[in-house]
């Protein structure tokens, strides 16, 4: 119940920041037309504020924040981001196997034949399909 109320409070905060700071700074003022550039995002922000208020006053739904899972997701996201940055730096063929193997190791895979299949064979196949067969540009 308390976590559900907190989600309402966070939503109000996010909506107000959008409504009062971000949207005015990131949209242009216009004098003509039936809708202003700020109209639609403001409607969205207002929805967030009002629904957040509703959620705070009358909390509903289930909230399941698990810090351990969130930490795990952060590690996996870190592997993905680092893998992609590596792709841009050293190229797809060199970075993709490292990324897949790192993700497999984090997932708990310790069998080297499977790590070889996932980390070498699949990235090579995907690269061959996109770069050679479909002639698409990869990082």
């Amino acid at each position: 119940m308390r976590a559900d109320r907190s989600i309402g409070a966070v939503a109000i905060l996010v909506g107000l920041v959008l409504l009062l700071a971000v949207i005015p700074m990131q949209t242009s003022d216009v004098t003509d037309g039936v809708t202003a550039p700020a109209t639609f995002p403001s409607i969205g922000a207002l929805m967030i504020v009002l629904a957040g208020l509703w959620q705070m006053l009358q909390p509903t739904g289930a909230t399941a924040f698990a810090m351990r899972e969130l930490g795990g997701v952060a590690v996996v996201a870190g592997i993905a981001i680092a893998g992609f940055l590596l792709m841009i730096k050293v190229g797809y063929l060199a970075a993709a196997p490292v990324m897949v193997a790192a993700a497999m190791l984090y997932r708990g895979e310790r069998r080297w034949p499977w790590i070889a299949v996932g980390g070498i064979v699949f990235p090579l196949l995907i690269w061959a399909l996109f770069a050679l067969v479909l002639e698409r540009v990869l990082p």
Partner: protein
Amino acid sequence: MFDPSTILAGLSSAFTLYNLLFVIAGIAFGQFVGAVPGLSAPMAIAIAVPFTFVLPPLPAIAFLIGVGKGGTIGGAIPAILLNTPGTPDAAATAMDGHPLAKQGKPLKALKMALYSSVTGDTFSDIVLILVAAPLAVIALKMGPVEITALIFLALAVIAGLVGDSMSKGLIAAGLGVVCASVGIDPEHGTPRLIFGQYAFYEGLPLSAVAVGVLAVGEIFRRLADRESPHEPPIPLDRDGPAEDRRVSWREYWGCRVTMLRAAVIGTVIGALPGIGSTAAAFLSYGYTRSTSKEPESFGKGNLHGIAACETANSAVMGANMIPLLTLGIPGNVTAALIIGAFVVQGIQPGPLLFQTQGELIYGLFGAMMLANVTNFVVGLLGLRLWAWVVNAPSSIIFSVSLLLCITGVYVAEGQPSAVVVLLVFGILSVVMQMAGLSIVAFIITFILSRQLELSLSQALIITNGKPAALLQHPIALALVVLSLVFVYLFGFRRRPKRGATAES
């Protein structure tokens, strides 16, 4: 006009081994690309178009039609097996398809998706063949005012899918509207919410946001869950009862009303520009669940849920061709790519097409029917292959899926910023799911908001901002009234009492 010899000549030119081979190739390619997260049917067609330049007109168009049809079922494969939709329009399929797969019935779920996809596709093709011209004229009467009202109707029906908390659903929808507002505003052409990043002038890339929220979030969670890395993502019991691996005629026939309604929804939405197959799938799913006698069984592996989504999103495919062939107007990206292929082949789509190229058009219709049968056969073989592939350890499946998502979005968008958006929205998806915010509400409003803003500003200009002007648009008025009825029926009246849980 109606010349039997032209029709027969067209059909006979379609039913050749040469054309069949191109249809099979197109469908196999479409199914594969559709199954790769980030790559959708339009992307598959965009990749395939250059291959058709060296072909005669009929095999070329038949190949592209095959790619499009294969792409629609391809998206459902990862949605059902991994809960990571390959295309946004398959997201609704995952809601019942994945729970059924988790019960040890992945082949049953995949086959239901295939059967209903082919049914929806065939229905809209028949409508195209029989009544394309009158339907196109009706579609032309749907101006911005009517389109706006139709989007409101879609949102009203989909409101029933936000879960057990309307307030959280609205928070998610509000976020969807804000994210959809990034980029050039449609009325004045000024950039907004881009924070100096010119890569976002065109808005946040749809494929990156959709795959990030629907697929990458799930992949992150499954990779973060470090238990049983050697187990496959879903159990596949090959020694279990045969009825767990097939869809009986009784089960298929039991979904006939659902499929008919979904096919009509998909055909109507497909004939209109700008709304698309994702909205059709969710609209059909929302309506089917809300009108079901057992709404609580949805989200737990109900065959009607799979049938509603797959029939509707596949029916959009054939209906897309209605304005294209009869008026020369492409209703969406897929149709625009096909019109490009027509022009390259020296064919000018439009009202005179049936007169000047009658044999080719009836050949095309024949190829479409051929493609439906082929889609069914290739699909049956392909589904077994995919079900076998996901029998590998989950450590390899989800790690490789993550790489496919990154590769697919990079190829689709062609810029690194799209991959950043993909990963950011993957993290956002996890946070939203933990907070109980509906990712369905988010993605639907994200997809529909752009078209809604454009149509709404056009509608306000047409009506001078006066609601009374709606009276001059009876179709729009009827749709608005229907929306209000649906908001009451599906949004409030049938909402579970507080404390009760809902599966979506």
